[in-house]
């Protein structure tokens, strides 16, 4: 028995140690730093209470980033899930080469956000603009990335291209776990394809929707890599009378604040991101779980 306890401890130690050092301790440090005047240079760190948080809600750049992050998340969650659901229907149908297509749709997920950001920057700034001028299509001639009102939508399109193949696999796994006899019975009874999808497939996939919505929600909210190399926050626009960057999402706003040595402020913004993310994902999971139970 004594030997067992020793082995248990030994097996737990490496992961537990790394977990404490990398997540738990920095987490509490982070909470503390958000209530100080930490600037990353001075060793003299003073406690300032909630002053950083109070200032956040009167700074236009943060409020703007906050709002567009919510807008981006909303658009992106819908785009990614609709596209990946359609893809999952296609690759589980009876068309030839469906496994080939399934493998192909997944490829963009393998390319990191940094690399694909550059690729799509080229497509939006060069390819589409050139296509617009050679075919005389006016709305294509100015890049979507240089307009404040289209740039968020553009990021959602790029993120959908990256993520749809991954979320598709979650839906595929879910569809394949549904007994085929169910869909066949409905087919024999003369139910139309759309009826079968909305009345049988979607309710049976409630669990997969919970996972997919959670994943897309949290990753959209934390989006950084693609944002950095696709737009780097641009173009410039105005919000509440102050100049702001039109596509600077929260994660990038935090990064840029810290880069300007306003570390405590960046940390306070990160804590707000954490709290909002926690509340939103708790609500989402509770609502979705309720739907699963009703089934």
């Amino acid at each position: 028995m004594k030997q067992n306890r020793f082995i248990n401890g030994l097996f737990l130690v490496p992961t537990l140690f790394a977990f404490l050092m990398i997540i738990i301790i920095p987490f509490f440090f982070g909470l503390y730093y958000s209530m100080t005047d930490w600037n990353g240079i001075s060793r003299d760190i003073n406690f300032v209470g909630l002053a950083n948080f109070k200032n956040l809600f009167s700074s236009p750049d943060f409020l703007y980033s906050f709002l567009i992050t919510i807008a981006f998340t909303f658009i992106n969650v819908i785009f990614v899930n609709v596209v990946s659901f359609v893809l999952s229907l296609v690759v589980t149908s009876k068309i030839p080469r469906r496994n080939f297509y399934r493998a192909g749709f997944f490829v963009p997920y393998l390319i990191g956000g940094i690399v694909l950001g550059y690729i799509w920057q080229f497509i939006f700034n060069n390819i589409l603009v050139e296509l617009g001028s050679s075919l005389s299509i006016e709305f294509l001639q100015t890049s979507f990335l240089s307009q404040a009102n289209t740039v968020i939508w553009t990021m959602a399109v790029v993120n959908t291209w990256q993520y749809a193949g991954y979320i598709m696999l979650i839906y595929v796994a879910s569809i394949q776990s549904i007994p085929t006899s169910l869909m066949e019975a409905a087919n024999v009874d003369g139910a139309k394809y759309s009826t079968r999808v909305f009345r049988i497939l979607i309710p049976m996939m409630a669990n997969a929707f919970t996972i997919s919505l959670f994943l897309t929600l949290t990753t959209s909210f934390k989006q950084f890599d693609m944002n950095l190399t696709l737009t780097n926050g641009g173009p410039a626009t105005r919000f509440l009378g102050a100049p702001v960057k039109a596509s600077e999402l929260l994660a990038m706003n935090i990064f840029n604040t810290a880069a300007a040595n306003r570390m405590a402020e960046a940390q306070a913004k990160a804590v707000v991101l954490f709290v909002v993310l926690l509340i939103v994902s708790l609500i989402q999971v509770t609502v979705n779980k309720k739907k699963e139970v009703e089934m």
Partner: protein
Amino acid sequence: MSKTELEKKKYPIHKYSQIFLEIFTIILFILFMIPFVMVVINSAKTSKEIIYNAIAKPTSWKQLFTNVSLIFSNSTVDYIGAFVDSTVITFFSLLVLALFSSMAAWVLVRNKTVWSTIIFMAFVSAMVIPFQVLMYPLVQWLRILGSFFNIKLLGSVGGVVFAYLGFGAPLSIFIFHGFIKNIPYELEEAATIDGCSRGRTFFVIIFPLLQPIIVTVLILNGIWIWNDYLLPLLLLGSNGRVQTIPIAVTAFAGAYLKQWDLILTSTLIAMLPIIVLYLFAQRYIIKGMVEGSIK
């Protein structure tokens, strides 16, 4: 009646909708692949050719090799070094993650105490903490730790691997935990009766059974670690001795602003290794992802 005829009788295929579905899928597939085609054809052009016509086929594919050699001989970025560092970091991170988190998960499943539940819940709830809250305090903390124990945690491969063990542990333990729960305990009991020590029981009986779920853990973490940008950037610096591929790509694109011939070639080089790997291991990767998603 042959088998296919039987199938046809069983599921009446509506011929037109089938053809429509196939065309729809092919269009979707082409849309998904266009960015890759654009990267390849423009990597085989000179800067002038791209400005003149970015959609056209390259005049000579030899230019591709010229561009590639231009990048490999470039002094701002050491692509081969970055590839080696990325490979080493990913390999060792995956090794410690798969080994240590499966060991920890096994103890947490088999050792039914209040502490096991508390530790497991701590791991699971840590998954909602966004990286942004931890990143700056982590760098600060690793600096303190490093100078205290006189080891190099910042700017070294070891520090990054240690960080990936901490960040990867929650999800990996969660996945292993779900899998190990379903392995019958009788297997271990039999081994114990036969005189097998507890530590050996894990490595001889349990670990081989984990093989399918290890593939899932390796793939999920592997794609993330290979493409990760912020963590290595903060721990290694943007022009440190150790560099990963995403950092090298941003360094290169930052130095050659808007020189798309070189930037696109560098993205092509950056994504080639993972795509080649995918071509060979596609079946396992898709299967691993699907299994990971339903857990």
